[in-house]
């Protein structure tokens, strides 16, 4: 049972779905109905989503396109480095369908903060975390359960289809987008001491 949801219901003084619960369920419904027919709802989603208790889908507005990104945001990294995995519809995969929710399965024991963005082949950069120009990377304390981040990315029309390189940045201190841009160097495996970068390929169809 999700104690967070139970606490929210008790505080609302109503034993019924809260706004957050409705949003989480709807995101899962969309993710499932967007998949190909005939496939079973993968066990991974039950395991991960159940353990994560809540999957907050980043609304459209949170995925900000940054066409004026630094050109140094070029594809790099060995791609095989561990650090995080991507999952859609409950399966670790590099290929997701529009309408699904992209989930981050993070490696335990990394640094406390996590930032992520995706770079499409045409150079478009989509920020995942921080979710705003003034925000900072996510504090992973209380944000993961069994390694699964409690926020996912809605792969909707705004995100768009295409071939992406997803960059995950772990750091000991919170980083803003500006911090990341200023310290990012092509082919570098980190942004400096206390940071590390991992990449994953993502195809959105």
């Amino acid at each position, binding site marked *: 049972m999700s*104690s967070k949801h139970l*606490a929210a219901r*008790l505080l*609302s003084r109503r034993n019924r779905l*809260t706004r957050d619960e409705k949003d989480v369920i709807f995101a899962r*419904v969309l993710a499932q109905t967007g998949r190909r*027919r005939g496939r079973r709802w993968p066990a991974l989603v039950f395991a991960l989503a159940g353990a994560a208790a809540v999957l907050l889908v980043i609304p459209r507005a949170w995925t900000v396109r940054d066409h004026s990104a630094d050109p140094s945001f070029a594809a790099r990294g060995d791609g095989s480095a561990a650090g995080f995995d991507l999952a859609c519809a409950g399966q670790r995969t590099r290929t997701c369908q529009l309408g699904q929710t992209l989930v981050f399965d993070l490696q335990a024991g990394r640094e406390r903060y996590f930032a992520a963005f995706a770079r499409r082949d045409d150079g478009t950069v989509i920020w995942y975390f921080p979710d705003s120009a003034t925000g900072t990377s996510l504090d992973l304390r209380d944000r993961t359960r069994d390694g699964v981040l409690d926020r996912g990315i809605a792969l909707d029309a705004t995100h768009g289809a295409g071939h992406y390189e997803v960059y995950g940045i772990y750091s000991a201190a919170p980083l803003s987008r500006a911090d990341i841009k200023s310290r990012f160097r092509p082919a570098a495996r980190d942004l400096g001491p206390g940071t590390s970068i991992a990449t994953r390929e993502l195809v959105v169809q």
Partner: protein
Amino acid sequence: MSIFEHNRELLDRFRRGDRAALAEVYEHYVDDVALVARRGFTMESAGHVYIRGADLEGEHELVQDTFVKAFSASARASFDGLRPYRPFLLRITKNLMIDRFRARQHAATVPVGELDELVDAGDPGTAPDPEADLHWRALSEVTAAFVAALDAESREVIRLRFERELSQDAVAAQLGCSRRRVRTVERRVQAGLKRHLRRLRTTPGMSAGATKARRDRRYFGRFTAVFRRGRLS
């Protein structure tokens, strides 16, 4: 009244799978579906069957599975917009609950044909669950006392965020503070409440509640049937 009545444009978008239309339909019916999933339902036929409601996780799963089925491409395409939509949704929910009930019962205890007849017998609505209601009331009373002991700022954040379900941004604007402050207060109160409830469960006076809570955790996907005329198990 069905949400599609006199709204051909919504029906068209719904059948195409337009996300906004799906969201509108979901919002319109999700509370009804969740109510059945949470409270269970009774059916009259050869006997009186009570399919017990699910716990919080089970409720989520039932609501999700109901809408996944209802929003599938084939279900959307085949819906004509003339039939009432709520009974259609609730039938899906109840069938899912019965499937789970069957899966957890010995095959001999519930004649499959009989349950099918019962499902087809009509829409009896939700069933009261005095035990669950009592448990909820007990938790609510504890929570009310906990909230009453909070400082004024925390109480106001709780009222706006949880009772009125305003966004953190809206609450921050109303209280003249930052969103981060709202989030901090919200997390602190939730964590405090959880600790408070955990402490109470370990006290002698709450032992019955603790037993109930443990049983609640096993509710996931588990339902019981009570037959007025003879128990089958």
